[in-house]
């Protein structure tokens, strides 16, 4: 090795050291934010996804029962060791924490209605061998296979049953899947409705926002600043106030109906129902989400040199050809970004449909809240949430494939 090469190597090492210091400083600067994002965003989401598919309540507290019931064929008679294990482990679990038997009972009850007290009883009753006969003596249900099948479904730690339920399917004890009874099938309809509403809101925002953004980009700076404030005003007003304002406008005795009646366009009896339904959800969501469409569009349009349109005109294009062939294609990155933003926000929108949607205007996020707060079926809520998240990520991926995420401009 010559002296020159030695010198270069020393130089490389020094450069690496100098760069390492810079990288470390950069990392330390973003570390607080990184920690915050991990704690408040990434971890809850991961916990949620995990909860949807993984639960050890039964398998940890009733390990032997879990193992034995996995081997049990759903059509065979219940073997004595399984009955014995269930009785013994239920009592043991009650010793550890008196609440556990009723939580297990809730689990089973979700698969087979009416199982709540049957399962709780097992932990409280004094059952002697033969255990299967003892259980049957406790209640006739234990002599039937149904409750055992429900237990078999909830026992494993890993289970796709909540995801299946989120898509209106039910997992059976023998591992097969059947679709949910039509009167309970709700989620798919809500998913479909949510996608339709999100698409409708996105379309309405694009149609309403495009001319506004065009105007903003083509008036003098002073005027555009003032107009921009009007566009941003909704951002600075409480969501609740805005929604209430819409209620005042749209309700049966609201401003719009009163005006129409006063103008004799509709009769007193024919007042329009515009509140607490799908119409209200669409109108209010469009209003709330409009700025998210206008801002990226505005920023892209402002960057388009007016000479492009002039060039097209000078080359003989009619104004409409110049617009569609030359101007519009250049607004696609902004339009794409606005649509993506509005659609994703609309898909997960909760508060507006909850306030103004009534029955027909409820969306998938409202059913998630329902499962979180009313039925306390958190794993199912988590499963629906996970599917929603996956859908949004899929959409994002599609957008990056079709338009290119690097071309997205958010303002």
């Amino acid at each position, binding site marked *: 090795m010559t002296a020159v090469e030695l010198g270069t190597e020393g130089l490389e090492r020094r450069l690496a050291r100098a760069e390492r210091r810079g990288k470390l400083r950069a990392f330390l600067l973003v570390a607080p934010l990184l920690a915050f994002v991990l704690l408040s965003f990434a971890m809850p989401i991961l916990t949620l996804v995990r909860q949807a598919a993984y639960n050890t309540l039964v398998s940890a507290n009733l390990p032997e029962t879990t193992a034995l019931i996995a081997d049990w064929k759903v059509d065979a008679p219940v073997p004595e060791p399984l009955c014995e294990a269930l009785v013994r482990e239920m009592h043991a679990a009650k010793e550890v924490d008196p609440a556990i038997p009723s939580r297990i009972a809730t689990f089973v009850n979700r698969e087979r209605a009416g199982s709540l007290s049957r399962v709780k009883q097992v932990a409280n009753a004094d059952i002697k061998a033969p255990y299967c006969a003892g259980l049957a003596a406790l209640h006739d249900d234990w002599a039937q296979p149904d409750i055992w099948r429900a237990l078999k479904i909830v026992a494993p730690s890993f289970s796709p049953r909540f995801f299946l339920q989120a898509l209106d399917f039910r997992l059976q004890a023998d591992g097969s899947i059947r679709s949910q009874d039509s009167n309970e099938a709700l989620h798919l309809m809500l998913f479909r409705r949510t996608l339709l509403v999100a698409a409708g809101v996105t379309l309405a925002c694009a149609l309403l926002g495009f001319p506004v953004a065009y105007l903003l980009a083509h008036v003098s700076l002073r005027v555009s600043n003032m107009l921009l404030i009007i566009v941003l005003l909704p951002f600075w007003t409480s969501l609740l106030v805005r929604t209430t304002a819409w209620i005042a406008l749209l309700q049966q005795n609201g401003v719009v109906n009163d005006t129409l009646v006063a103008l004799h366009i509709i009769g007193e009896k024919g007042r329009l129902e515009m509140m607490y339904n799908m119409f209200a959800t669409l109108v209010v969501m469009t209003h709330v989400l409009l700025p998210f469409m206008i801002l990226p569009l505005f920023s892209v349009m402002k960057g388009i*040199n007016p*000479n*492009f349109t*002039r060039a097209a005109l*000078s080359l*003989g*294009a009619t104004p409409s050809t110049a617009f569609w*062939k030359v101007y519009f294609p*250049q607004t696609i990155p902004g339009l794409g970004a606005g649509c993506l933003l509005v659609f994703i926000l609309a898909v997960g929108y909760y508060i507006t449909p909850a306030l103004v949607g009534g029955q027909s205007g409820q969306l998938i996020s409202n059913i998630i809240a329902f499962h979180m707060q009313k039925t306390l079926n958190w794993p199912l809520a988590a499963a629906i949430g996970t599917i929603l998240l996956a859908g949004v990520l899929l959409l994002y991926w599609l957008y990056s494939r079709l338009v290119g995420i690097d071309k997205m401009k958010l303002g």
Partner: protein
Amino acid sequence: MPSLRTNGFVRFENVQKTYDGRSLVVKALNLSIGRGEFLTLLGPSGSGKTTTLMMLAGFESATSGEIFLDDELINNIPPHKRGLGMVFQNYALFPHMTVADNIAFPLRVRAIGKAETTERVRQALDMVRMSNFEGRKPAQLSGGQQQRIALARALVFEPKLLLMDEPLGALDKQLREHMQFEIKHLHERLGITIVYVTHDQSEALTMSDRIAVFNDGRIQQLAAPSDLYEKPDNSFVAQFIGENNRLRGVTRALNNGRAEVEMRGGVIVPALAVKAAVGEPTQISIRPERVSLEPQNSEINLEGTVAEVIYLGDHIRIRMQVFDDENFIVKLSNGSARRDFAVGESLRVGWSVEDGRALDV
């Protein structure tokens, strides 16, 4: 004006333009452009030259007056029906289209057949020597290449008239000079009428048949490049085109086209009377290269003091004080008769009377 009507391919007749209704950007413009002419509108920014071009293109409407193209009144014809080619500052190539699509654009909007379009795009690319670039996007081209494509696009539909709005402003000096020649040669080859806007006087001098010098919304002088340089009509043109020495004085007498100008201290300097009136202040404009040092048989022989000597290789610039002008420049070509000059040295300066033009102040 019947004479204008017959020879003007493009005619502006008493055209005025105001944006705010108070001040005129273009004031009473009369301009006639011949068929096949290369005419440059030259002037500082805000002088009205770009507005004039935009009125011709149809992007701005004339507030009053008439604009004719090929004897047709075009005031109310929208830009896309005027059939003019235009090259913009920063080229305005459509970024989402390939080079070939850009050039085909004017043909497609005219619904010209596919085969003919392909053929004419190929010819246009050949013309600007960019044949292998048809599949590229504008962003993948250098400034000079984009300029050529913009030119090809503006010419491919064989417009009656080509308008160019500072087309070389974004290029570096060397490329700009190269493109100047290329555009000039293209003009000679195609024989198309070109109206060219620039604020760069050397660009205007290089390329044009005639130059219209704009200032304050008016054409100050419309003339061939050599006349503009050698025979400026007023002090603005003298000042704007090339370098210029100014000696201020008062016209005392006018005879046979000569003005007797009294300088400070009572010295009378004769000059060619261009825009001078007896008793009015005037300034004599002299090009630096027309001044000779230590003149022998010159009618003008004045005293000056050397203030600065700058060596520039092919020539030497001497800044002198002559009367009260401290920026009197003398340009000496670096020939065999070279000698050294010292700051503070007293020298005689002179020029022939015809080279000093008595202009307005």
